[in-house]
Structure formats: C-alpha cells, structure tokens
C-alpha cells in the first residue's frame, strides 16, 4: 500500500518518543557534570608525576634526569635540576626536579615521556575537565599540580600500577640487600681492617721493638 513505510516509521519514532519517558535504559545520554561515564582502564590524556608516601616533595620519584624533556616531541616539558640531593624511591641519593612544568595546551598525549622514563615516575592521567579561563597560565601545570600519589595511580590504572609497584618492591629489596651486603662488607672490612691494624700494630710494635736492635746495629 502507498505510504505503508511512512506509517511504519512514524510508529517506530512514536514508540521511541514514548519509550524514552518510560524506560531509562533507552536514554544513552550521561548528564555530564552530575554523572560520569565509568572510566576504562586504558584511558589516558595528560602526564602526571607519581610520588610515594604522603609527602609530595619527599616522595617524588622523578630524579630530574631530563630524558622525558629531551624526548617529548612537542617539547612541552620543562625541568630544572636541583642543586642538592635527596633519596629517591629506592633510597639512593639523587637530584630532584626543582621545577617541573608541563604545558598541557601543547602536550599531544603521545605517552612518549612515560615510555622513556627509567624511574617509573611519570604516568598518564585521566582527568579531562581541565577547561580554564586562562588559556596560557591556566594550562601550564607546575610540579605541585602534577604530583599525585601512588594510591591515585593505583586507582586509575590498577594493573599497570601493580606491575610498577612489584618492580619497585624488587628494586627496594635489591637495594636493601645491597645495603646489607655493603654494610656487611663494611663490617667485614672494618673487622679486617681492625685485625689488619692490630696485626700491623703488632708488627710495628715488633718493628719498633726490633728497631733499636737494628739501630743499634747501625
């Protein structure tokens, strides 16, 4: 019949119209500021710096090696190395970044900085509501804004963070073993030195005792 398709279509749209008032499942829209879509784990947008423990300054993993700064394709990272040193994540004395800025208006979210960082200290974040009144200063993130805790990292990328944590635990264990070995070696060395010194002093004593003999002979 003429117009059957049209009537069928009209019925379909009418069903959609009424259905959208009856069943909430039909509405796929998420009312953004109030509700948010669940984040998928692989989501990423801009990098942030991870710190361990509670103090962002002390726990910052970054050692200001500046590899990421050199590798970043659009050159949006700026780092200034500190003069002094502080212990890094594994307890080794290292430099730390006195300044660490990322201009996220330039960043292209390529994740290269994350790939190259040898210290697992820079990772990709998932926050997306970054709109700002000031498009220059407002989008230049400083160290204070970039530093986020390891717990936060664990919540946004659990699998990845667990691997990193395991790796760090291993490193720390190794470092501890090294420290212990070093301490033992030191102890041993000290003991050796002590015995050596003793032996030496004894020999010197003997020498000194023997000296006058030689001297006497001279």
């Amino acid at each position, binding site marked *: 019949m*003429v117009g059957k398709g*049209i009537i069928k279509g009209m019925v379909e*749209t009418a069903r959609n*119209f009424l259905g959208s008032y009856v069943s909430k499942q*039909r*509405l*796929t829209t998420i009312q953004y500021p109030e509700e948010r879509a669940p984040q998928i784990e692989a989501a990423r947008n801009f990098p942030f710096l991870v710190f361990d423990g509670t103090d962002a300054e002390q726990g910052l993993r970054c050692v200001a090696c500046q590899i990421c700064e050199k590798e970043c394709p659009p050159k949006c990272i700026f780092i200034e190395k500190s003069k002094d040193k502080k212990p890094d994540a594994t307890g080794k004395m290292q430099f730390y970044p006195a300044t660490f800025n990322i201009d996220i208006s330039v960043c292209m979210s390529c994740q290269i900085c994350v790939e190259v960082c040898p210290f697992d200290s820079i990772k990709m974040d998932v926050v997306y509501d970054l709109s700002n009144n000031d498009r220059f200063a407002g989008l230049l993130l400083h160290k204070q804004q970039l530093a986020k805790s390891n717990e936060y990292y664990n919540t946004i990328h659990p699998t990845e963070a667990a691997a990193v944590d395991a790796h760090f635990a291993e490193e720390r264990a190794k470092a501890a073993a090294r420290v212990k070995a070093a301490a033992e070696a030191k102890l041993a060395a000290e003991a050796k030195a002590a015995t050596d010194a003793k032996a030496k002093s004894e020999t010197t004593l003997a020498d000194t005792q023997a000296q006058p003999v030689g001297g006497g002979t001279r």
Partner: protein
Amino acid sequence: MNLKLDQLDQIFVILNNWLLGYLPPVVRPLCSSILAIALILVTFALLFAITTVLERKGLGRIQNRFGPNRVGPCGFLQPIADGIKSLTKEDIVPNPADHVVHFLAPVLLVAAAFMAYAVLPIGRNMILVDMNAGVLYFFAIGSLMELAVFMAGWSSRSKYSLLGAMRAIAQMISYEVPLVLASIVVIMQSGSLSTVSIVNMQATYTGIWPHWFVFTPWGFAGFALFMIAATAESNRSPFDLPEGESEIIAGYYTEYSGFKFALFFLGEYIGMFATSAMAITLFLGGWSAPFSFLTWIPSYFWFFAKLLTIILTFIWVRGTLPRLRMDQLMNLAWEFMLPMTLLNLLTAGVWHFMPAGALRWLICGAMVVVPCILLSRGLKQRKKFQVRKYRFSE
C-alpha cells in the same frame, strides 16, 4: 453563565473596543490595527520560541536523547538563551556581498511571513482584515518569501548560497502549484475567497459533528495534498533540500550570521505556522470546535490547539523521514501532486452536483483513492534499478 462565556470568547475584541473608547474617533481604525498587529507579532513570536524548544525536545526524545534540559525548568527557557546568544554574536557580511540586499533579505522574509497573518481568522471576530479575496492575498504574500530567498542567495556572492537559493526556489515554485490547486476545492465548495466566510461555513453542526471540509473525500485528499505541499513550501523535513549540510551547508543563508541567521529561522517558522493556519482555516474549520457540545470553549483556544497539533505532527514527521533527493522531490510535485490535485478538483465538482447520500460518498471516495493508488504504482514501476552508467568517468 452563557453571557460570561461569550465574553470570554470575545475578550480580546471587547478589550480592544474598551481601549479604543479612550481615543478620538479619527485615529481609532489605525490604533485598532496597530494593537492587533502588535498582538499577532507577540503571540506568534512566542509560539516560535515555544516551537523551537518543543522541536528540540521532541526530536531528542525520538532519538532517545534528553534534548535541552538545562536552562530553566525542563529547559523551557532555552529560547531566551538562544536569543541572547544570537543577538550578541558578531554579524559578518561577506566583503563582495551586496550589502543592502543582503540586509534586506531576512527582513523581507520575516515581514512577508507576518503579513500573511492579516487574513487568518484566529478566533471568532478576530481577524485583522476581512478581505473578500483573502485566500488570494495569502498566496500572493506567500510568494514574496521566494523573493526573499532569492535575494539572500544572490546577494551573498557565494556558490553555496546561490545553489541553495536555486534549489529552494525551484522547490517552492513547484510546490506552489499543488498548494494553490489543493485549496481551490474549498473555494469551489464555499463559493468565496474570504477566509471568514469559509470558516463560518464550516462552523455549523449536524448533530454533534461539524461540517469541516476535511470530512469529505475531496476535503480529506485536499488536506493531505495541501499539507504535503505546505511542508515543501516551508522547507521542512523531508523536503529540506535547500539546506543539505553535506552539500551546500545551510543553503541560501550560508553567509548569514548572528541575528540575521535567527531571523531566517523566525521567518521560516512563522511561514510554516501561516500555512498551517491556512490549512486549518480551509479544511479544519478554523476556530470552530470539533464537537457541537464543546463550543463553549473560546474560539481562539481551538485555533491554537489545532495549530499546535499540526506543529507537533510536523516535528514528528521531521524526526521520522529522511531527506528526499532533488529528482524525487520534483517527480513528486509534478507527477503525483499535480495530477492528484487536478483530479481532486473534478471530485469536488462531482460531489457538488450529486445528491447527498452514500452513493456520493462511494463515487467520490473511489475517485480519490483509485487514482492515488494507480499513480503511486505507476511511479514505482517506472523505476528500473540497474548499474548506473557514467558518461564521462569511464
């Protein structure tokens, strides 16, 4: 009680007379017109605002979205936000454009759209001018809108505008023919070109049933044809070819921005309301109530109820049907609409000269239904699906 209801029905007329009583008799006709014009402008601009939000919400719901729901309760203040936005936007005129014509086009469009309301009876005794050639005036003013479209397309000096205007004008002129022919049946039957007497003729009842022209075979066919042509005339989906986003951007108003752009929208919607109101006047009994026992409800209420129903149907159709192709559009106009309207004229003549009864219904009904089916069958069969041959690309 009856007197009170009558007063409610005539409240605008009474108020008008009361206000004019304070003026010297010389200026009374002028002031009366100005008052009525102001009222019409405000009412239909408001209706435009309501329609935009209804349309956006309705389309949203049809597509399982929310539609605007932020500004005001349920998003109903959205038109105010839209208005402020379009008022504060920069008004860009292309450098090579003809500035005067470019400026005049949207103004003319809106003016022409509003001028059509002069002959539309909004309620009992509520009409600006009861012209004895009202229907003719209405269609004459309607063709002014084509001029505005042409001015907009030509003065912009842009290929998209020009092509859009060309499409729009081709479409509007093609559909003007069935539009006028579909309304002629009513003029034949009522023997008058005055909108008031056409409505008066329909506002009578047999039992509880009104004598609307839509309740006759030729009236129903005429109404359907009129509405299809009106959809095309006001560039509404599925005939919204003048604005193909992927091909010619926004058509003839591509080069418009800011409030002039909004004026085009206003003009288009006002024109759509005007043609819908004309359809109501011609076929749906104007301001008359659908049942004799409902006549106590004020006449303007019925007019706006009918208008809103038609607007909602327009929105529904827009949410359903995809856009036609240019050749389909033209074929529909010249190969289906035109023969159907001409046959409908014949049907109306037969109806007029046959004695009332079931036989008249049967014959006239057959005269409408059979050609409709045959014509659409014929159109379908002519379509041969085959691999298309391109003349130049091989």
